[in-house]
């Protein structure tokens, strides 16, 4: 067992993958939230400063980050629903794998069109 595996190992299979993704997307969204508080705070310095800050988001790298952020939020939200279902509906542990595949299907169904639209809508 390597050192890294100590931090990412849980119960194996779909359960472990969904748990690891939940942590990674959670940290990612929280770090962005800190940055987002700072960029929004710049509005206190008036239109010139705030419009300059917003212009920093108008490039392909930031757009890609924006799409990844949206995907992270969506996954975290859908997997969170799966966690709540299993917590409050005792019989659902039997179908927990199917619940995870359900998360994946709903995620793809929403994320793919949204990502395509976001890339196309940006000039």
């Amino acid at each position, binding site marked *: 067992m390597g050192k890294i595996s100590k931090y990412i190992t849980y119960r194996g299979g779909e359960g472990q993958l969904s748990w690891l993704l939940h942590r990674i997307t959670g940290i990612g*969204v929280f770090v962005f939230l800190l940055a987002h508080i700072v960029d929004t705070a710049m509005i206190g310095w008036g239109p010139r400063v705030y419009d300059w800050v*917003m212009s920093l988001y*108008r490039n392909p790298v930031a757009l890609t980050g924006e799409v990844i952020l949206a995907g992270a939020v969506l996954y975290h939200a859908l997997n969170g629903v799966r966690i709540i279902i299993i917590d409050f509906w005792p019989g659902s542990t039997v179908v927990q794998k199917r619940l995870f595949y359900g998360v994946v299907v709903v995620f793809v169904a929403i994320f793919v069109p949204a990502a395509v639209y976001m890339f196309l809508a940006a000039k």
Partner: protein
Amino acid sequence: MNGAGRSRPQGGIDLAAWIFMRVSGVVLLFMVLIHLFIMHIMNNVEVINYQFVAHRYATPFWRTYDVVMLWLAFIHGLNGVRVMIDDYVGSRGWRVFSLASLYVLGFMFLVLGSLVILTFNPAHPF
């Protein structure tokens, strides 16, 4: 252990945090996805600027929405990091230091975010 998340704690602050994560999670699912839909699908960073925010914050509705979403999301995230520090930081000294830093920095960011939303006044840039 029989849940997908952490098993339900017996009581006290841990149980309160466990319940808060689930309740805030459901509320945030709607609030954040609506926020993303409005800001990144209906609009995007091409059109979001000072004028856009001034118009949006002219009435109290979106300010209230944003401040409620900020608090729920921030405390949800802060508690998530707290759980991870408990999981990963083995030494007691480092754990206390990490948690203290988390709470101090978290408090500062939450105050900054709230002040920005609640005090923004387009007529008086400072």
